[in-house]
């Protein structure tokens, strides 16, 4: 059982974002949420992590209303890598990663050896152990994003939500981090829900596509059926061609810039 969103409504001061939106998210897949700027992707993510509450309708996780979870219990189920991230205080990278263990650590107690082991493992996986003792305030935007990603992995949750989590990264680390996410989906450890802007990157990783437009689900389905010229035209209002590209063994989208 994953998420069941049923008939939710939400608006920012009268200007409707969602009206009567419903969606099921089954566990064990790599979901891509795709849509133009301002279509409500980040708002949808906020609903899934109980950062915003729908005005009507329900969001259920594992058959239980999100409102019936405490924040702490939810933090053991769902981790979020936010879109923008800034921090004004000079914590070390290791301290930030260990913050991912917060939901598991009783108040007033120091990190357990399990916490330390998990933190060390995710730092190795994301390639940040090299600057584990540097201050987060001294790192570049891309390095910070890798640290935030590692922090979310340290949270060790069944669900990982990526809100444009690779927007500042170079291609090497983009592939590195998305491979980590994809591997954990393949081995059945995680469900990943990723908001993405780059359609070709999404085509490499997301096996289930959710197209959004103006607060509505415009189309959704497995990549084979959902990723096509008609849906891209409908959602982004651009002309494109979708074909299978043998080198990456994935679907590829190319655009006609003047159409």
């Amino acid at each position, binding site marked *: 059982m994953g998420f069941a969103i049923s008939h939710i409504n939400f608006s920012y001061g009268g200007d409707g974002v969602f009206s009567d939106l419903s969606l099921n998210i089954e566990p064990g897949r790599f979901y891509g949420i795709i849509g133009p700027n301002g279509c409500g992707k980040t708002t949808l993510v906020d609903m899934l*992590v109980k950062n915003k509450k729908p005005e009507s309708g329900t969001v259920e996780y594992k058959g239980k209303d999100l409102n019936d979870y405490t924040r702490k219990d939810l*933090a053991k189920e769902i981790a979020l890598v936010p879109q923008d991230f800034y*921090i*004004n205080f000079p*914590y*070390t990278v290791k301290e*930030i990663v260990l*913050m991912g263990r917060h939901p598991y650590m009783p*108040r007033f107690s120091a990190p357990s050896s399990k916490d330390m082991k998990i933190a060390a493992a995710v730092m190795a996986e994301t390639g940040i152990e090299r600057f584990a003792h540097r201050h987060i305030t001294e790192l570049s935007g891309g390095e910070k994003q890798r640290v935030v990603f590692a922090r979310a992995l340290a949270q060790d949750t069944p669900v990982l939500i990526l809100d444009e989590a690779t927007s500042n990264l170079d291609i090497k680390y983009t592939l590195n981090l998305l491979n980590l996410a994809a591997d954990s989906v393949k081995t059945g450890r995680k469900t990943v829900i990723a908001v993405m802007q780059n359609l070709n990157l999404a085509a490499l990783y997301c096996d289930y596509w959710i197209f959004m437009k103006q607060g509505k689900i415009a189309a959704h389905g497995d990549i084979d059926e959902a990723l096509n010229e008609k849906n891209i035209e409908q959602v982004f209002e651009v002309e494109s061609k979708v074909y299978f590209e043998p080198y990456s063994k994935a679907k590829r989208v190319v655009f006609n810039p003047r159409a």
Partner: protein
Amino acid sequence: MEKKKLRVSVGGQTVLLAVLLCAVILASTGMGYMKIPWLDVIRIIASKVSGHQELLAAMNHIFAYVVVDVRLPRILTAAIVGGGLSIAGAIFQGILLNPLADPYTLGISAGAAFGASIALLLDIGFLGIYSVPFFAFIGAVATLFFVIYLASFGGQVSSNNLILSGIIVAAILSAGISFIKYMADEQVSIIIFWLMGSFGSKTWTDVFLTFLFVLLGFLIFIFFARDLNIMSLGDRSASSLGVETNTVRVILLVTASLITAVCVSVSGIIGFVGLIVPHLMRFLVGPDNRKLIPVSALAGATLLLCADTITRAVLPMEIPIGVLTALIGGPFFCYIFRQRQIAGTMG
């Protein structure tokens, strides 16, 4: 390995600061118009605590009166207020994600002073000795929420807007305080003297009142210290890590305002302590609030006590303590602000 070494040294720093504070308390008790040897100071305190009168036998009998009834209340109040303002500053900086925030730059001190001035002007006494602190608290909390309201736009509170709003509101409140001074015929000298900040003629009641509130605040801060660490990642990240951000923020802001109000109500406006001390301590122990808050409390107590002792016993005439801290702290604020501009890290 490295982690372990760090933790020991932080514990060591706390102990060192505690020892330093005790030493400064003893030394400053001996200093003043009448010099009292520090051994006699220890004897007097020991005799008061244990009830053994014979410890006082060999010394000038006026010493005991000077130490117990004149100097110690002033010294302890100064130390407690210094610690209180410092931890309040650390909390404001942590919550507002802004290393330049403190009760003074946010206008909270001015709000407390405005509330207290009204209580003094109208000679309100329905709560006994708690009347002035109570009005100071109302003034502080009202100012805090107004400053946040002024600085927020679309659910976002920008760091720079907060400081600007704090300074604007503090300017309006200062004008209001001037007006109150103008209105007050007989009380004007009380209000003026009180506003400039002074630890003169403090009593044991002041000591216990401030200690009670500062201790309460300290315990609340320590309870939420790790949540506050997590909140420096930003609201979305912090709530996804299981922190009830809104609840924690309100509790901590109100507690920090309460501490500020109590401190302002016993000592007047003492600026920049809450800014400088946490800032320096962050260099020493890092930004982790679980370490920062205890060392800030100790260092703030030591610093303000030293400043008060300088004006009381070293300078030829007593300068109001608020004037002294502003004279030293203001330039320091300029320095930090400039450094941060150069580093390009202003939020």
